[in-house]
């Protein structure tokens, strides 16, 4: 009983004995910090836009009885104060440095890999969801027996660059996932992209370090494989890849807040003798290039291809071909479609995530002869927008 008492006394009394002028100074330092932060935040100029976060920052909340009553004013005040906090960007950057220093390898759903590579979390295989998608695709192939159906699902960086993933990070075998998807499909030519990409000379160059897309090197390999399987002749046209920016910091950098690396985006040169016209159907805009150079000065530089994702894009060419291709796709296709231009009379690009109508209408209107489904594995496995686009 006695020893317990002695312990209690030690614990309770220790701080008292130790309090001296030093604590006073440290408390005063904290007080000063509190007051300075208060003054700086209130007196400082409000920033409107954050480059790092790519969004407008919260402004001063508007005071009204109803906004106070339902608590909106208080919420807005909190986001206003933290958004306009002095040195906000530097503080956030310090936090990521601390996190990485103490060993964290996953921030905001992004894996922090080796050699500055960032990785998107690989999607899981959800039988029901995939089945709904593949059933829709099978429905189209069954309805139009005369149309050639191709499907190409690209693996993501977590599959090809698994050596660069953080040790033990949970992964998915995408090669297996993709062949499982392929085995669900009837009447399709299934194009295997995993093999060629895995055998590339320099796998590290196939994906951006800071973004979840594939690079022009990967597109080059994929194009050769797709062309071969679709019966196109890639050697008929030669092209070069031109670097258009080396300051690309993509989605993975943004969501993790790690801006330590920069990527280079390359775009292919078009064969001289091919002319084409690009129509953004819903936007009613027509132009003569698939590249939107203005995006290079913005945050999302990958949008240099087609200017981003659009519901329906028509590309009409003077290529010596009578094939009409419909590409149903996600953003991985944006950098590959430019290479297909010399091979088709018309290419209709459909993004089911934005295209709300039935694809039947396009197939019949344009007298489509070939359909290519071009996706990356993560998006395809999570997709819920293909279902319902055909009945």
């Amino acid at each position: 009983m006695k020893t317990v008492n002695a312990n209690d006394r030690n614990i309770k009394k220790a701080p008292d004995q130790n309090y001296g002028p030093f604590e006073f100074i440290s408390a005063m330092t904290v007080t000063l910090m509190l007051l300075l932060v208060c003054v700086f935040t209130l007196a400082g100029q409000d920033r409107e836009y954050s480059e790092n976060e790519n969004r407008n920052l919260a402004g001063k909340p508007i005071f009204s009885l109803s906004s106070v009553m339902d608590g909106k004013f208080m919420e807005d005040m909190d986001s206003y104060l933290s958004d306009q906090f002095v040195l906000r960007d530097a503080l956030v950057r310090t936090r990521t440095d601390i996190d990485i220093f103490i060993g964290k390898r996953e921030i905001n759903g992004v894996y922090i890999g080796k050699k500055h590579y960032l990785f998107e979390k690989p999607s899981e295989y959800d039988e029901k969801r995939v089945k709904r998608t593949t059933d829709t695709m099978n429905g189209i192939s069954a309805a139009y027996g005369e149309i050639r159906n191709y499907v190409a699902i690209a693996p993501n960086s977590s599959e090809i660059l698994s050596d660069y993933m953080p040790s033990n990070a949970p992964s998915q075998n995408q090669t297996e996932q993709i062949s499982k998807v392929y085995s669900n499909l009837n009447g399709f030519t299934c194009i295997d992209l995993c093999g060629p990409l895995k055998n590339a000379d320099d796998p590290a160059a196939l994906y951006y370090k800071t973004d979840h897309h594939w690079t022009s090197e990967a597109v080059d390999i994929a194009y050769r494989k797709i062309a071969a399987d679709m019966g196109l002749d890639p050697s008929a046209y030669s092209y070069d890849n031109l670097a258009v920016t080396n300051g690309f910091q993509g989605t993975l950098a943004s969501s993790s807040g790690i801006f330590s690396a920069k990527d280079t985006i390359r775009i292919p040169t078009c064969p001289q003798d091919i002319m084409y016209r690009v129509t953004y159907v819903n936007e009613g805009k027509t132009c003569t290039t698939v590249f939107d150079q203005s995006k290079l000065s913005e945050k999302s530089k990958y949008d240099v291809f087609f200017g981003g994702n659009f519901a329906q894009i028509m590309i009409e060419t003077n290529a010596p071909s009578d094939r009409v291709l419909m590409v149903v796709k996600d953003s991985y296709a944006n950098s590959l479609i430019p290479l297909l231009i010399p091979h088709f009379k018309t290419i209709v690009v459909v993004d089911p995530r934005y295209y709300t109508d039935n694809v039947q209408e396009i197939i019949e209107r344009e007298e489509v002869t070939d359909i290519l489904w071009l996706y990356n594995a993560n998006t395809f496995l999570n997709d819920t927008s293909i279902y319902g686009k055909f009945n």
Partner: protein
Amino acid sequence: MKPKNYLVPELLLVAALLGFIVWICILNSGGTQKSIEEVSAPVCLVLTDGQMNKKTNTDAIKSFGIDLDKTEGLVYYANDSVMDVSEMLIVKLVSADDAQEFRTAIQNRVTDQENLYKNYAPDQYALLEDCIIKTSGNTVFYCTAKNADELYEAYKKAL
């Protein structure tokens, strides 16, 4: 010293508590006897020209996946353009118990839309982030629009 009589203030305060409980229950249940047309008409007046067009109930089912049998009536406005996410839904329910179900359906719709427009159009995404979803008893109000606050105020007055 003469003893003070505290009974009156005590009873008054108990009455105040009961009053508060009744008030908060009314506030919580809300609800309206007015028809959906009476509620929505003044709100629609606030809509600016070309901001949204009236949609059918079928459109509402398509967008939100809601069960029409559980509603007494609904008004759905949306912009026709793919590039404009503005929309407004006012639903009067048969039973206030289903309010949560409808809120979830609306929330799912908003999340889907947010995922769609994240890359597409930051300004539209910002509108979705600031959308208003409110329940007052048997009516659910949802709005994504530049002037969502104004529309909500008009709706509250109309209840």
